[in-house]
């Protein structure tokens, strides 16, 4: 486990900023109790964790440390940062653009489908094309995230079967991808 290098930090921040926009700094801002969130890298996975926790976790040997705090995603072999569904709670808190889907669209989304216009309940205004979106149910339960296929204005003119948002991650992955999603020694 180690802090991120400069490049890694940049890759992570860039990715996060797609979803959070300017409120990215809130993620790493010091908290009231003096603690703050830090990024830690362990076996290619990036974790967002309180500093006090990260310090304690140094006692755990590398081979035995499987997870700490919230896993944001992992670095691929080629050095790209891939964000995981486990980062959803963080993104949902700080999301800039949001999309709410109707009850009839929840299951298709959780099975890994893209979001079609017919399933969209609400949509953040002024969302440009190819921008990170966090997907919620109508009662504000975060379900996953993706990127917008069209800008808000364009998607208004879309027919009901047109794709509004490309899925990137959804909660269903906890069941579907349990084997690959998490580190196992």
């Amino acid at each position, binding site marked *: 486990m180690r802090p991120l290098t400069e490049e890694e930090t940049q890759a992570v921040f860039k990715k996060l900023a797609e979803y959070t926009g300017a409120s990215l700094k809130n993620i790493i801002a010091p908290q009231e109790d003096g603690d703050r969130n830090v990024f830690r890298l362990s076996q290619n996975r990036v974790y967002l964790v309180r500093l006090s926790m990260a310090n304690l*976790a140094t006692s755990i040997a590398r081979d035995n440390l499987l997870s*700490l*705090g919230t*896993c944001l995603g992992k670095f691929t072999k080629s050095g790209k940062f891939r964000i995981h569904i486990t980062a959803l709670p963080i993104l949902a808190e700080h999301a800039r653009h949001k999309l709410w889907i109707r009850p009839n669209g929840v299951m298709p989304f959780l099975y890994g489908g893209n979001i079609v216009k017919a399933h969209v309940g609400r949509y953040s205004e002024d969302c440009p094309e190819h921008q990170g979106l966090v997907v919620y149910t109508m009662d504000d339960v975060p*379900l996953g995230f993706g990127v917008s296929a069209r800008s808000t204005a364009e998607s208004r003119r879309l027919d009901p079967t047109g794709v509004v948002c490309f899925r990137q991650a959804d909660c269903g992955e*906890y*069941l579907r991808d349990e084997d690959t999603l*998490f580190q*196992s020694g």
Partner: protein
Amino acid sequence: MGQGRRMKRKQGMPEALSEEHFANLKRKAGLPVEPPVEKASLSNKKRKTAKGAAAAKKPEPAPKKASVKSNGKPKKKLPEPEDDGSEDEEMGDEFDLDQLEGDASSDEEASSGDKKKKNIWSDDEDEAEEDDSVFDSDDQEEGKKGKFVFSDDEDESDAEEKLTAANIAGLSRKLDKKLAEDKAITEAELQESAMQTNIDGPKIFGEGLEDDEEEDDLAKKSQALLAPDLQLLRQRITDNIRVLDDFANLAEEGRSRAEYTAQLLKDICGYYGYSPYLAEKLFNLFTPREAFAFFEANEMPRPVVIRTNTLRTHRRDLAQALINRGVTLEPVGKWSKVGLQIFETNVPLGATPEYLAGHYIIQAAASFLPVMALSPQPNERVLDMASAPGGKTTYCSAMMNNTGIVFANDPNKERAKGLIGNVARLGVRNVIVCSYDGREFPRVMGGFDRVLLDAPCSGTGVISKDPSVKTNKDEKDFISLPHMQKQLLLSAIDSVNHASETGGFLVYSTCSVTTEENESVVNYALSRRPNVKLVDTGIPFGKEGFTSFMGKKFHPSLKLTRRFYPHAHNIDGFYVAKFQKIGPTPPNAIGAAGKKSGGAGADAEVEVVDRTPIATDDDAEEAEEKKAGKKAKGSSNGPSAKGDFSAFDEEEDVKYIEKAKKNAMRRRGLDPRSLKKPKAQEKK
């Protein structure tokens, strides 16, 4: 004839009882019980066997007849309500004319013409009818021969012999009359239904007749074997329990309590499928009646319970959301504010959007208890020593409201995957997942405010979940498991920070009900660690732990521990003990351990663990080095170090100073061995 019928009638009675028993069994065991299934298949087969079969059936060996008849009796009525209903609608109109002519006796001629029109269904049905008529005559004939057959049967015939001739005559007349009436009714019914479905099946099934017959016999045989066997066993079990309950009055003379118990145990083994060893072990925990209830409860599944993730939602909201999805549920009990018991569900509970969004976790009610006993407070440091699949860990985190730190340890990395999944899904952020052997723990990290040890165990409390426990646990398991549990418990105790302002607590729990894994282990820990005491678990229900069991005396404070049973509380069998650590582990605690026999391995392990509290070292090589060093030095300076706790010991201190130096060097990224090497050379 008359007598035969009477016999038949008489024989019929206990069989009807057996039906009831099966119904009972089925209901209680919640199994897809074989007997009813077999009966169904049997009756199906009988339907297939056509008229020709009747002839073949007559020369059957005697004992089978009992079962044939018993089956035949209810069967007579079976086809009519079941099949006719559907059949009537289908073909009532069409075949009325034919059927009116059709007599049960002239089935074949009448139906040969109809056959084309009829579907397979009706074929079957007709055969059933035919078969039934066959059975009737069969029964009668059997009855004639049956005299001898049934007089062999002890129970029934005993009573019969007592009847005087007059009685027999009178009784048989009466019975004959009654039977004739019954017969008339059934025959009328038969004819009626035959009229509706008069087709001939034999041609279709003619070829398979012999095979069918064989199968039929087999099925009957197994039926005959199975039915009275289980029924008898159960009867005997209940009888024996009754006798054991009131031994002074009910026992036969000359039979000792031990004999009754042995018989009962044997029956239980046979009836429920336990290994004799385990059956005895479990039986000894209870009174006979309670043991029976326990074994019965193990055959029934426990209710499905989910725990609300209070980090994400509230129980009421969750309940509402699930009710909208068609789930029938209800709070699990007054004792829990987060549990919901599921009665019925139309959706898979492990795949609802609420589940995926982390609003709840499926968790047995019993595994709420250790966490409730632990009651972790916000901003504490908690250790869960064997945490997969994470139900308890996430409950801890939820109680702490995502503050503080929870170390979730599980030695099995594969299981840890599920743990990480649950932790992530439930939005828990204060968990560090690691995979150590729990016995390494105070060495990896100590000073926890609270430690939860849900020790690996034999699982005798969760037999309803995993019935393989019944047979695959033997003496060895009940030696090795407690051994490991003792080691784990000692290292758990040593990991607790006694000086913690809010905590200093340790909860030990198992999903087993045996004393070896529970009271004995706790008692052992109390004897080895004078710096811990048992405290009240704070769980409002459950039975007190044993303070003495089969001649073994445990510490009186074991009363404060809690046992939970499936039959008493309708949760898995469970054991919870809560300790409070009131002082540091004195070095001579280990010395005390050394005196006692048994668990030498554990002592060695603990010794290493205890005397190197600051070593956060993970280098195996170095650990070995230390061990080796310790063993070498053990004889010379070991006793002195153990003997006086408070006094300064220069020699000992040097070691610690050295270790601290090494740690400091490692922190700075230097190789600590470079420090040691020159010293070792100097010593030489």
